[in-house]
């Protein structure tokens, strides 16, 4: 009976004063939606950071030699050129991979190399991770090729396939098509271009078929289209015979080199670039020095430093390699390229089971501690002094960003709650003033101050609850939207975005935070009721 009376009074008051409560309702709805979004953002930022670490580089666990820099407490320990190895037999490999919690495990070797273009110039420094080619996709799923293939299986006698870190920086991609000329590759400004046009079209009338090219603005596209169309044509020898004789009057080693490289080249893919190099050698004052860009299918000479050199400087091992594809990279930390561990062992003269670490990826992150203990027991049983380190230790630096965001978001949520609570106190105070006759009547009719306080705070609670419901619906729509398109501007991730996922926890938290806290603070202004007599509420003035 009393319950029915409470319900009637609450709903009647709410419907009568709906205009006054409307803004608080919308404010709370917005606030709850923001809290849900921020909590979702925090969780997904952490999740994506973990995924990037685990699925792109480290796995959940790594088994490493005791003197490995990865086993040290301080991760800024510089790595050494001489590597220490762990050496586990096939039985260990079978045992490890048979654990139901283990998704995949593989021995691996961390090394660096320097890639040289076939023309001889240094292309790039590469951080390499050599793993079992067949296990790469299941061990580190985020290494899936973004361009080209992620198959790094190597066959003896063939070029070693490298799944290369995408040439990318947080400020944008710097790859370019090697098969065409770009405007920046010509030295002349717009005024100087027509002279180059006329010179080159006179020398090569079969390539530039529609002269004259008189001005840069109008004729550039036509000129470039004809030039680039020639570059991708297959004929080479015929064209070389058409180079005017005056180019050979004085010996030029650069031209000689460029012609030799083009004639000897058997790689169809490199032909357009090598033709460009011949043009550069023919017109060195008009065309800038050309660096062979990074592209899928590019052949390189990979220089690997010796594993156990005792000299200060030792000759490296040269490996013929090819970029089979491009994979994602951690934009703020070291980008890693992948190769077949068998190829690495072959070229570096390593034994069959030698590896610098064993990478283990689990089905669930929650099993890390358990499996770590299981592996440590097994290592003890085997008499091995290898150490097991988890992804939290390995990715300590990378995960600090997620920790910082957790802290900032926690503060923001606190700020939102403070704002909502201040406004709630204000609204209840105003209600007390505006509804004083209604309150006084209630008290005169026999309601106690406690019951009145309960009724009014229940009203606030009900507004908070319903606004949280509305906020949840709004937040749900945004979560679904951002799960599809992602939140942009996130330079920390390979995709540049954070993709939200639906989870119940932020929704529950929004309710648990807002409803009780608003109800509780409403008691502050309502406590004034205890000091008043019913007659006080009928006096004029405020």
């Amino acid at each position: 009976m009393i319950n029915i009376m409470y319900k009637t009074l609450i709903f009647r008051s709410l419907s009568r004063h709906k205009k006054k409560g409307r803004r608080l309702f919308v404010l709370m709805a917005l606030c709850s939606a923001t809290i849900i979004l921020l909590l979702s953002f925090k969780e997904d930022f952490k999740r994506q950071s973990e995924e990037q670490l685990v699925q792109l580089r480290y796995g959940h666990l790594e088994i490493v030699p005791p003197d490995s820099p990865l086993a040290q407490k301080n991760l800024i320990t510089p790595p050494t050129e001489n590597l220490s190895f762990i050496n586990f037999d096939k039985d260990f490999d079978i045992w490890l991979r048979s654990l139901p919690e283990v998704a995949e495990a593989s021995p691996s070797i961390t090394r660096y190399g320097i890639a040289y273009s076939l023309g001889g110039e240094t292309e790039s420094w590469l951080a390499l991770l050599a793993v079992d080619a067949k296990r790469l996709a299941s061990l580190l799923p985020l290494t899936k090729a973004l361009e080209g293939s992620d198959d790094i299986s190597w066959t003896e006698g063939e070029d070693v396939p490298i799944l290369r870190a995408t040439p990318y920086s947080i400020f944008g991609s710097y790859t370019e098509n090697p098969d065409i000329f770009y405007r920046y590759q010509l030295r002349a400004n717009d005024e100087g271009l027509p002279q180059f046009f006329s010179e080159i079209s006179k020398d090569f009338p079969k390539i530039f078929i529609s002269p004259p090219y008189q001005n840069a603005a109008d004729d550039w596209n036509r000129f470039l289209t004809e030039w680039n169309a020639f570059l991708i044509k297959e004929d080479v020898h015929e064209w070389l015979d058409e180079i005017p004789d005056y180019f050979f009057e004085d010996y030029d080693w650069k031209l000689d080199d460029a012609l030799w490289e083009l004639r000897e080249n058997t790689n169809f893919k490199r032909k357009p670039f090598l033709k460009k190099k011949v043009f550069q050698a023919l017109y060195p004052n008009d065309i800038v020095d050309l660096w062979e860009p990074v592209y899928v299918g590019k052949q390189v000479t990979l220089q690997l430093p010796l594993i156990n050199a005792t000299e200060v400087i030792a000759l490296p091992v040269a490996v013929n390699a090819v970029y089979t594809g491009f994979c994602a990279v951690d934009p703020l930390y070291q980008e890693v390229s992948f190769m077949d561990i068998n190829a690495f062992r072959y070229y570096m003269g390593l034994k069959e089971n030698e590896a610098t670490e064993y990478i283990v990826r689990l089905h669930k992150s929650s099993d890390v501690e358990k499996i770590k203990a299981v592996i440590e027991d097994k290592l003890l049983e085997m008499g091995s002094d290898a150490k097991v380190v988890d992804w939290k230790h390995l990715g300590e630096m990378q995960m600090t960003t997620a920790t910082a965001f957790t802290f900032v978001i926690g503060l923001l949520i606190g700020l939102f709650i403070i704002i909502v609570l201040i406004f709630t106190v204000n609204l209840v105070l105003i209600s007390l003033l505006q509804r004083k006759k209604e309150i006084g009547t209630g008290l005169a009719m026999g309601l106690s101050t406690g019951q009145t306080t309960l009724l009014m705070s229940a009203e606030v609670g009900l507004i908070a609850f319903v606004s949280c419901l509305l906020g949840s619906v709004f937040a749900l729509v945004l979560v679904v939207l951002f799960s599809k398109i992602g939140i942009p501007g996130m330079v920390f991730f390979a995709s540049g975005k954070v993709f939200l996922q639906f989870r119940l926890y932020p929704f529950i938290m929004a309710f648990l935070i807002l409803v009780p806290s608003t109800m509780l603070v409403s008691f502050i202004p309502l406590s004034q009721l205890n000091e008043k007599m019913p007659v006080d509420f009928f006096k004029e003035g405020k």
Partner: protein
Amino acid sequence: MKLALQIAFRNISSHKRKNRIIFAVTTVLSFFMFLFLAFSDGEIENIKNGVSSFYRPHWDLRVFTKEFIRLDDRGENPWEETILNADELKKDLLAFPEIKEVISYVPANNVSLFINGKKYLYFSPIAVEKNDSFIQSKYEIVEGNTELISEKNTISLHYMMKKLIGAKIGDEISIVGDTIFDQVTMAKVRVSSFYKPYFDNPNLASSFLMPFEDLQNYVGYEQNEAPYLIIRLQPKVNPEKMQKQLISWAEDTNKELRFFTQKTSSRQDQWAMIYGMIRYIIIAMTLITFFIAAFGMMNVVSVNLLERAKEIGTYYCLGCEKPFLMAVYTIEIFLVNMIGGIAGILLGQGARLIVNALKITSEEPGFQIVVGSSVFYLGSSLSTVVWIIGGLAIITILTSLSTLGKALKVSPVVAVQELN
């Protein structure tokens, strides 16, 4: 306008209680906003004073040869293109009274250190010139030869290397790396000291200091050449004006040089850019907060004005027009917001001073990555204050637009009605 301002001030003092809530909210809001942005300012300041000051030391102007810029613009390797008479050019530049320091710059390549039979990878040498007061103010020597610049053929290692690679004072080290011509190069040096940056960062742990001439020689430059020069100006000298002066000086003396100020340089500080992006994310978050606070503010103002119907009615009776009253109440809201905002900023400044006085430091790499250096520092910038004041101004406009139109629709009769 003056009258509107006067009435607005009088209204604020006579409705103190009602405005208190707005004041409280804007104070809390601007206090937190200030702290968020002060954290971001501190990060950027830490980076500038720490890792950037070693790898990209402060400069007001940079001097390149025209050919260096031409090659750089076209993506060609510019590092072999140098200023050949660097010492004479330095003397010429120092003749300008506006110029305080001229320093030669040598790029730091990746090198390996061979010590105690082990070769450690990924170290970076940093050149310290004798007259470079800026870089010398960024570190202290914690062990060994206390001179800030190492002697010839000696280096100063980061103090962490004592523990991490077991280096000791007097150890002989071979440095192995590449010259600017891509040839392998090696130098034998001794450890003369260990240095500690005042604003440390994990990126500095593998950096070591060596005399400028040693590094110049090591990477393949002649003694009197440098890829570019760094100019630091006397206080209060405008770099843009100085740039113009130097350009005409170079033209008059037939010098093939180009001068760049911070504003005109295309070479950006990567660290500063990363922390700059983090600042943008923080600013985006403060925007959401401003929006939500604006909504709450509208609620309070609209209820306040509802209660002040009699006062509004009186103004109408006295012949006031609606636009005038719009101005009066907008000024009132703006002033209350501003007072709250300024109070919040002052409180934030107080909190900032207290936090900075605590001198919170850590050797943890994670901590150093988050705050930008080994020192937790809350910074302060004009942009932070402008952003907060601007945000509050936007809140004022939103509040006025959404509430005043309706609230001012009051009949003059209300002024003489009895209170209900």
